[in-house]
């Protein structure tokens, strides 16, 4: 499998995730889209590591897994607090920092 294909897949995943973050208003879906973006980055690391036969890509992916787990834990907690405070999960409802 050539490197380009895997990288294209990773890029496509990243773009999908970004599009989800930008287009979705539901905080759940925004979190999920961020997961997709993180996994796209992980995929790029792993394929690059396999391409050059080094361990670095897999090490980075394990880091990303840990960060993603932490991110989901904190993100869901925030989402819960937000829902309790606002009775909604609409990200655009949180615009109190409007200038």
């Amino acid at each position: 499998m050539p490197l380009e294909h895997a990288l294209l897949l990773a890029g496509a995943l990243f773009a999908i995730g970004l599009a989800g973050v930008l287009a979705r208003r539901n905080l759940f879906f925004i979190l999920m889209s961020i997961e997709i973006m993180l996994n796209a980055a992980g995929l790029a690391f792993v394929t690059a590591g396999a391409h050059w036969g080094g361990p670095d890509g897999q090490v980075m992916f394990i880091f990303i897994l840990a960060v993603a787990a932490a991110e989901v834990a904190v993100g869901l907690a925030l989402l819960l607090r937000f829902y309790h405070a606002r009775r909604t999960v609409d990200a655009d409802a949180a615009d109190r920092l409007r200038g």
Partner: protein
Amino acid sequence: MQALLALIPALPLAGFLILALFGGRLGRRGVSIVGVGSVGASALVAILAAIGFLTAPPAGGALTQRLWTWWSVGGLAPGIAFTLDPLAIVFTLVVTVVGFLIHLYSIEYLAGDDGYARFFACMNLFVSSMLILVLADNLPLLYLGWEGVGLCSYLLIGFWYRDPANGRAARKAFLVTRIGDTAMAIGLFLLFRHLGTLQIAEVMNRATTAWPVGAPLATAAALLLLGGAIGKSAQLPLQTWLPDAMAGPTPVSALIHAATMVTAGVYLIARTHALFLLSPAAMTVVALVGALTLLLAGCSALVQTDIKRVLAYSTISQIGYMFLALGVGAWSAAILHFMTHAFFKALLFLGAGAVILALHHEQEIARMGGLRRSLPVVFWTFLIGGASLAALPLVTSGFYSKDAILWAAWNAPHGGRVLWAAGLAGALLTALYTFRLIFRVFFGEERTTVTHRPTWVIALPLVVLAGLATIGGFVETPHTLGGVTLFSRFLQGTFGVAGGHAEAVGAGHGAELALQILAAIVSLGGVWLAYRLFLRRPETLARWRGARAGAALRRFWLGGWGFDELYDRVLVRPFEWTARVSRGDFIDSFYTGLARTLGGLHGALAATQNGRVRFYVAGIAIGAILAIAIMVFT
């Protein structure tokens, strides 16, 4: 005794500081105690100082207390220093005692007002500034008090600041007196430039030795100081602020008219009399200004419909008498009239305030009447004050002071007869407008019901002032009536032997007696005329008013001889026009353009701060894409 001198202005100043800083936390009772107590204590100290001065006259005729040097620049080192001489004693006593009575009265007058602490703070500062003015031993310190008085008048005239008209009146008072103040400041520069000092005693000494009588410089300096005096004392042509100053609460008017502010001009001229003596021309101007003002203001007082405006014009007119006396060199007569005027004018204003309060802030004479039954104390004291203002013979203080002025005017070397005639005509007008007021307000049928009866807090100052207004004149009586010269002899400490009108012997006893009888007839005639016109035969008056000339004259006098209109056309409107025209010039457009550009940029940038997370994410993504694109394509 000497060490107490600084306490006289310092006590009200301390009262002001306490009220300004902690007035909100003291509560009404605390504010009253501090506000009234500070002036009362100052009055006590002043009385003590005066007794000390009289029992043990100091060497040199004056007590001086120097606290510290204010500044020292270029040979000018004025001190914060106070001097007590006979002239200062008279002013200090009047300011503190009358000021104390007015403060006491204000407790009830302002009882329901939100700005209670603010009111007493300003009043205390007012009294303190006036005391600094009269006790200052150098001209810069006097000028400090002078400006302090102007500031406080601004604050107090605009006390009820929610009504824009009051704010306008306050600004007018401040700006018009400022014109005079500027002249005075230039006068001080001139004195310092040519005499090298601003210590009052030293200035007078050097002026008399350096300049001969009639020296142009002396005339210029005297006229510039006169400009300041005219502004503060509301004399022609800067008198327009005083009637509008009635926008303030009535105790403020009483304080401005009786004790502080308007008498400052009289004090200034009396204090620098040596300089004025060097310039016969300036003296003539002073006398003419006084004579003209007293006639013009007397006519205006005759037709006013607002009880306070009548009294305001009457003050202008009475200060005109003082200027007339100063102009003919009758210093002690002017100061005597200042003193008696302070008593009876404070009394009249406080009485008018009691009437206004009783009728629930009604000031139109037309809606008053018959109050002598429902407000007996106010009526009797007001009658005493009015009688004194109208100079009813023998029993009132105003008679003695006005008689002294008229006699001095008669004996003036130049144009004395004309000045005397003006004074006599003014006396007729005074009696006429005073008793018009009394007949309209206290006689006839009742038109508005009384809603508030004064308590002792209001009655006490009225009774005390009525007593002072009656006996105040007996300190100085003419030859023909006992020849008491306590007052003028006391003031010789300031004015020298030429000060008393007792020395102005010219026409002899017979003429003096004849003039006195004439003056008495004129003032009684004024009362009788007022009785005929305003009480017995109002139809005569109605006929005059109905006539075209009468109505026009009435309108002209009501507006104060059209001075407001004149200044509006000559000064205010051209100024506003210039301001309007130059509004769009290139300097202004540059700065407004700059401001508008910055405002637009600010708006554009602020629009990006919309608080939406997704918008910020898009920003980050676009930024990242741009950064990568730059890295890839360069």
